[in-house]
């Protein structure tokens, strides 16, 4: 049984008379502990899929089962609990709370989590132990993204979702962050879904989902994922 299973998922946006089919029957599965990569052109529906997976939005048709439970049937409250306990989310634009230090941003997540990791330890993992008392505005983009990752990781989620975590970063920093994610996935057995525009990165993933026009255009299983260090793009 796959850990995550999307089955014929539809998501529509009604804009007056026009209806946009952001997702048009998406189905795929990911195993527990997988490092999945979602790629595709702009507007393909990647973010939409991730949002649905993260319980941030509701779908119009189909089902999404995570760990055997169909979250499509969840109400708002259950979705909140789902986000709270199972999901870690990393945004493209970090979305740190400006008014909190790095450490506090992480604490924001851990204080509501039932089984959190040690905040300082996580910050050490992402290499920001000595910057943990800095505010986001005092950190570089890559550092902020690492704080965002630390915030997601510290909750000790079952599922870590990252929407273009390297999008705003330079090559080296992006690489370092991806490495961090891959390592974490390997060491903790966390399931990881990462959206990227960068086709070169697909080699990293164990599952590669290519999307186009609201559908999965290609689904690949990569038996031999390449460690990030060896990827060039």
């Amino acid at each position, binding site marked *: 049984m796959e850990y995550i299973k999307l089955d014929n998922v539809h998501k529509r946006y009604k804009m007056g008379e026009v209806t946009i089919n952001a997702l048009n029957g998406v189905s795929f599965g990911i195993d527990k502990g997988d490092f999945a990569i979602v790629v595709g052109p702009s507007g393909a529906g990647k973010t939409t899929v991730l949002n649905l997976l993260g319980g*941030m939005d509701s779908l119009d048709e189909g089902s999404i089962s995570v760990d055997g439970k169909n979250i499509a049937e969840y109400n708002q409250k259950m979705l*909140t609990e789902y986000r*709270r306990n199972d999901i870690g989310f990393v945004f493209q634009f970090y979305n740190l709370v*400006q*008014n909190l230090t790095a450490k506090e941003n992480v604490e*924001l997540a851990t204080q509501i989590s039932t089984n959190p990791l040690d905040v300082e330890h996580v910050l050490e993992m992402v290499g920001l132990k000595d910057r943990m008392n800095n505010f986001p505005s005092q950190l570089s983009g890559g550092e902020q993204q690492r704080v965002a990752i630390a915030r997601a990781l510290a909750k000790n989620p079952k599922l870590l979702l990252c929407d273009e975590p390297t999008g705003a970063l330079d090559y080296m920093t992006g690489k370092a962050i991806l490495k961090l994610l891959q390592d974490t996935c390997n060491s903790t057995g966390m399931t990881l879904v990462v959206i990227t525009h960068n086709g070169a990165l697909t080699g990293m993933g164990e599952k590669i989902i290519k999307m186009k026009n609201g559908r999965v255009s290609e689904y690949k299983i990569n038996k031999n994922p390449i460690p990030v260090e060896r990827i060039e793009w």
Partner: protein
Amino acid sequence: MGQNSFLKDLVRTIYKTKARFFSILAIIAIGVGFFAGINATQPDMLLSAEKYFKEHNLSDFKIISPLGFREQDLEEISKIRGVKDIQWGYSKDVFLNFGGATSSIVKIFSFDADDFIDSKGQNIPLIREGRMPQRPGEMAIEYGINVPKELKIGSKVDLYLPEGENIKNYIKSREFTITGIIDSPLYINLERGQTNIGNGSIDFFAYIIEKDFNMDRYNDVFISTNESKNLSPYSNEYKEYIASIKKPLEDLGKRAIEEETGELKEELKKGMEELKRNKEKAERELAKGEKELLDGQREIEEGEEELAEARIKYIKELEDGRLELEKGKKDWEKGREAYLENYEKWLEGYAEYNQGVEKLNNAKLQLDKAKIELDQGEMELQEAKAMLDEGKNQLDILEESIVQLKNLRQIIVDGPSLSQEEFNGIVDNIDGLPKEVKVALKESYKYIVENPEGVLVVLNMTISRLEEELASGKKEYEKGKKEFEDGLRKLNEGKELYKTSLKEYEAGLRELRAAKVEIDKGKSELDKAKTLLSENNFKITQGEKELEQGRIELEKSLEEGQEKLIEARGELSKGWSIYNKEKEEALEKLREAEIDIRDAQRKIKEIPEGWFVIDREGNPGYGDYNDDAERIGAVAKVFPLFFFLVAALVCLTTMTRMIEEERSQIGTMKALGYNTLAISSKYLIYALLSSLVGALVGLAIGFKLFPIAIMNAYGIMYRIPERIAIYHYDYGIISILLAVFTTVSSSLLATLQELKSTPAMLLQPKAPRPGKRILMERITPLWKRLSFSHKVTARNIFRYKRRFFMTVIGIAGCTALLLAGFGIKDSIDILDVQFGEIFTYDGQIILDTNKEEGKRDLEEILGKEREVDSYIRALNQSVEALVKDSDRSYNVNLLVPENTEDFKEFFDLHERVTKKTLDLNSKGVIITEKLAELLKIKLGDSFEFRDTDNIRYEVEVKGIAENYLSHYIYMSPEYYDNIVLKDPLYNGGIFTVKDINNLDKNNFKEKLMAHEGVLATFFIDGIAKEVHYSMDSLDYVIMIIVLSAGALAFLVLYNLTNINITERIREIATIKVLGFRDKEVASYVYRENLILTLIGTFVGLILGVFFHKYIIATMEIDEMMFGKNISLLSYILSIVLTIIFSILVNIFMYHKLKNVNMVESLKSIE
């Protein structure tokens, strides 16, 4: 963007932000409406009055002449420049009886229908019901609260005057029928002025036709001036114009009165002078007589004093003598005792001496005996000595012999033998040898040759025998020698002893001799003492005799002095009693003179100086109305402005925020090449639309709602028939401009601010406001103790400074408005203090002083009622307190209790702040606090009041008492006497009942009214109720304020919270994604709001206190003083309401928070 898409964008923006749009609109509407409405109230009130006055031709002057007007007076008046129309008539204050028990005091005016043809005439009555009187016996009465309720059209009433005066002298008939009910512009409030009958205050007014009057001269003249139709009644121009006419009118009045009363006044003055002179003379004489008597009395007193002094002196001397004598006696007694004692002692000494002589003689005998024994012993010793010496000699010989013998033996042993002879010779030479031994030796030696040994033996034997002898002799000698020595020593000792004993004896002898001398001396002293004693005894007896003599003499002389004094005193008292009798008579005369003088003074005072020229300010309520309007105006100057400021501030924030939100759109448009005007016009139009529409709505409602509501509230106190509320263009334009200007200009500024940046920068996400450490974090122990979410809250509060101040100011403003509103309500809630704490009596009755005294005896009326606990007589009169250098006067109750001590049982007069109790004394008056304020006087100042006979009196203020309702002058009877120059005529009683709660008041009242002398009875709880009624109108105004403040508070909070949430939507979305539950999200946001609300509330309370103070100071009406404090409940209410609003808003917002779309909020970079 074409015209079309511009419009579309605008409409879409408005639609999208409709909550914001309408909240700006509503805030502006409330702010503008309140501002303009309250500001319009003052002019509207004045306009309403002006309309009434002009339509009903309110006269500019009313002239009253106490002597009535002569034909020529009227002519003179109409000649004065500015006088346009003159209308004359009669008026008379009478008692009106309706249906038996109740009498009212009514001012009756004459009505001449001819005056009012073609809506001419002055003070045109406003007919409410029925018609004006047309025929004799008809009467129109007013429509006022003091008119008995049962009095209706068709009712018949009866007029009468106080006893002693005949109504027929003034009005032809006594019975009248009511034909109409009217109002008059002369009386616009509840006051009806004063009179000189009854309790001095008129209950209502009425009209009868002129022909019903039966008076010689007109006593009322009404004047209208050229400008009365043109100028606004309360304007300065009007006041100045009126003042210019008043002066000549007054001068005219003075002249007219002088013509009629000048002579009388002179006479009275002369008479008074004469009286005064006589009085002074009598006083002088009296004083002289008294002085003489006093001198005599002083002499007697001095004599008495001298006598007493002498007596004391002599008695003292006698006493001293007696004491000395006593002492002498005692001394003599002591001396005698000493003498006896000494004599005894002397006898003892003498016996002792004799004994000593005997002892000494005995000793002498013994000494002589011892001498003989000693001599004998000495002789014996000398004999023994001789014997010893003899013994010693022999021993020596013996020893010599032994030596010779031994020598001899040696010779023999050695050999050379001696011849016999030789030997014999030798032996013979040895003295100590007894002959037989010599012989034996000589014998033995003969055989020396044959037996040498034999010689030796004999020799040896001899030697040893001799030696033996020597030894024992020696021993014996020694013994004897020792004995001798002992005896010698003893003898010496005995001699020594003898010698000392002899010496002792001689000493004893000497002593004895000396003792003898002493004893002899003692004896002679004793004899001397004895002589002295007997001498002293004689002296003492002599002294006692002298003392007795002295005493007898003293007593005699004292008695003589006393007798003389008594005689003198008798004469004096005779003098006094004559004087007293004379004095009594003189004083009586003086008193009479004084009364005469006082009467004369009064009479002079009572002669009027001139006419009473009264302008409109003298109409009851005319000035008060303007004051009240001004008060509202004063409130309007701050209250709504404050209100408006809060509204403007919130709109400003809202617009600024909106433009910040649209930053990227602005950037895009700028990038696309639109110019500043094109870009900013959208926001300007948005702001313009919302503020303009809001302002218009606010004006439309405000100009009607507030003035009408407030005038309605005041309508209970003022009889202005029509209430006009117009649209005031000035306030309208000002408030529209203010509202539009603040919102539009803030939008413009915000847009321009944004447009300063390059399009690229605008399109970039705005650099998020960097996080900062706040001061609190530096207080590590405190910071550490805070929970995580509290830390976030703390940081957020201090980070967004603008939001902090906006919210705090907004909320503070609302709380302050609420507190001020409630505070005003507290301040006008003064009845409990007035009727519970200050007036401690239960009721008053008014007596008809024209009735004979027996009929108005309180003892009869109140003293016999079971229900009455205690009562006091008092004079209760309505007077006018005059403001210095002004025409303004205030109606005041003058209260003179008969007894100032008992008075305290009924009134608790005290200073408000210090709570110091004030006592009435004969030096001045106690006035109530508000009166002092109105007259602008302090403790120790003086002011004037005018009684119902128009006589002025000046009094000094000795106390200012806490009081809230109407004004009082409290005066002691003594002071009244001083000031008014007559004894107070007590016309009322103040009483307490035993159980006010269970008293059947109507029944009780009826019982009291049954007495002929009782004019009226009332209970203070009745007054309290009445006042309460008029207070309700103010309550109404306050309700408006509180409701408006509440609405504003709600909107302000809504807007601020809204801004708070939109500003932080990303943050909120983020924590929602993290899995914060709805409640957690809410508390994350609301904790801040709550704290800001609390801070704002606190600041608001402080602000509100000042606000309240200001408003109360400006809002007070003349007849009342408002409380100065805000009650705890009002504080609590303001706090609770603010917090409730805040909670309501937050509940409202909860929905919005719940529906924050995470996906959309986080998608773009803002």
